[in-house]
């Protein structure tokens, strides 16, 4: 099943690549072929937001006593890892696009700044997670840290509407409710978003399963240590 999903993801990504590189038009006003970065930059940014949203939701489910389960803690961690990766990619791709389109690698624009802060907030979150071996040790701390960090996600998303600095406002979701993209570009963008979402789901699944195995190993080692200790005690006690 996982293999099949991976196959479908690869096919979807391949279709996106073909459309993005050969079918869609270039645009002189945005650095000719540099406009094709749209089909990478937008999906990576979307995945970053989606990933942190999933992390926040899973953290919330951990914090509610009735739904508290190791699954949520591990899912939050797995999703945040993928989210940090994609936030980093978004920053790098945006910077590569900024040079031909705006003439600068970096600008202290509201969207760029809030995204950079987002990157560091979740880097801190991942560092915090690494300090505890089991879900019980790290669960509550990391869940609260994730919820605090999530405050920056809507700020970052809405920053282009609130402050209107250099970064352009939303192409699809904007205040005028007017979609500013059509034809092959619109199709490619949708294909890119869908295929990247599939890639995200696959990566989170892999990472989640790995985390479960790690968690299981910790648990088994603990049980083994307890069993050894009990045996050692029995040996000591035996002569008496």
């Amino acid at each position, binding site marked *: 099943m996982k293999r099949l999903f991976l196959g479908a993801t690869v096919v979807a990504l391949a279709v996106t690549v073909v459309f993005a590189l050969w079918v869609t038009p270039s645009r002189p006003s945005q650095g000719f072929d540099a406009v094709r970065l749209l089909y990478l930059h937008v999906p990576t940014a979307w995945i970053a937001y989606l990933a942190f949203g999933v992390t926040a939701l899973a953290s919330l489910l951990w914090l509610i006593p009735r739904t508290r389960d190791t699954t949520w803690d591990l899912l939050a961690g797995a999703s945040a890892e993928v989210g940090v990766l994609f936030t980093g990619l978004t920053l790098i791709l945006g910077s590569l696009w900024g040079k031909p389109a705006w003439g600068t690698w970096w600008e202290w624009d509201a969207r760029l700044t809030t995204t950079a802060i987002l990157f560091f907030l979740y880097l*801190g979150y991942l*560092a915090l997670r690494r*300090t505890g071996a089991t879900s019980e040790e790290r669960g509550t*701390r990391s869940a*609260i*840290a994730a919820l605090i960090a999530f405050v920056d996600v809507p700020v970052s998303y809405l920053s282009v509407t609130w402050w209107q600095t250099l970064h352009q406002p939303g192409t699809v979701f904007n205040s005028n409710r007017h979609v500013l993209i059509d034809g092959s570009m619109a199709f490619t963008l949708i294909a890119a978003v869908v295929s990247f979402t599939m890639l995200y789901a696959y990566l989170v699944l892999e990472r989640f399963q790995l985390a479960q195995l790690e968690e299981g190993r910790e648990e088994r080692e603990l049980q083994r240590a307890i069993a050894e200790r009990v045996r050692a005690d029995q040996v000591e006690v035996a002569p008496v």
Partner: protein
Amino acid sequence: MSFVRDALVIAGKDLRIERRSRVALQQIIPFGGIVVLLFAFALDSDRTLLHQAAPGLFWAAVLLAVLLAIGRSFSVEEANRARDGLRLSGIDGGSIFVGKAAAVAVELFLLEIVVGAAVVVLYDVTVRGIVVLLCSAVAATVGLAAAGTVYGVLAGGLRARETLVPLLLLPAVTPVMLGGTRAFQAALDGSPGDAWPWIQLLTAFAVLAVAAGTVAFGPLLEAA
């Protein structure tokens, strides 16, 4: 009323420790002073540049000192397993949070007076718009102390606590850095009216940080 009384007890305890140990007075406040000196080296003692950047440099110095103050506020709870005592005291988590944050805020005010005086003298700044300066400093300090206390307990008891707190806290308090700098800039430039949106930002941050801390401190103290 017991909420306030308990918070005052906790704040009194922390401030008494600081008065006796003099760590804040002899280490954290001088640290703020040396950072002010270092910035002057970085900008090659160019008076105009220092003068222009003074508000930002002031808050950067305060922000770095906050890290020390928070580290100190929670290292006193590590010694002699004081944290367990705090948990067993029966005091509500929210009260402990408000008390600890208030103690940090008092220390920060003292620090800001010293750092502010150093900035005025060394960076050639003329003090103007004192009401705006005070309002923004109060709002920013409450926000910094509250956010710092949240992250202090979040990392409490962990082996990597000292290195973790800066990584967690500094990105989270960027709104204070921005708001404090802009509000001070407006006041010193003689246009205090421009500072109010920034003071609103600082106040909103402070309210959010205090609310989040009051709710989250108890569970975090239990988890630590």
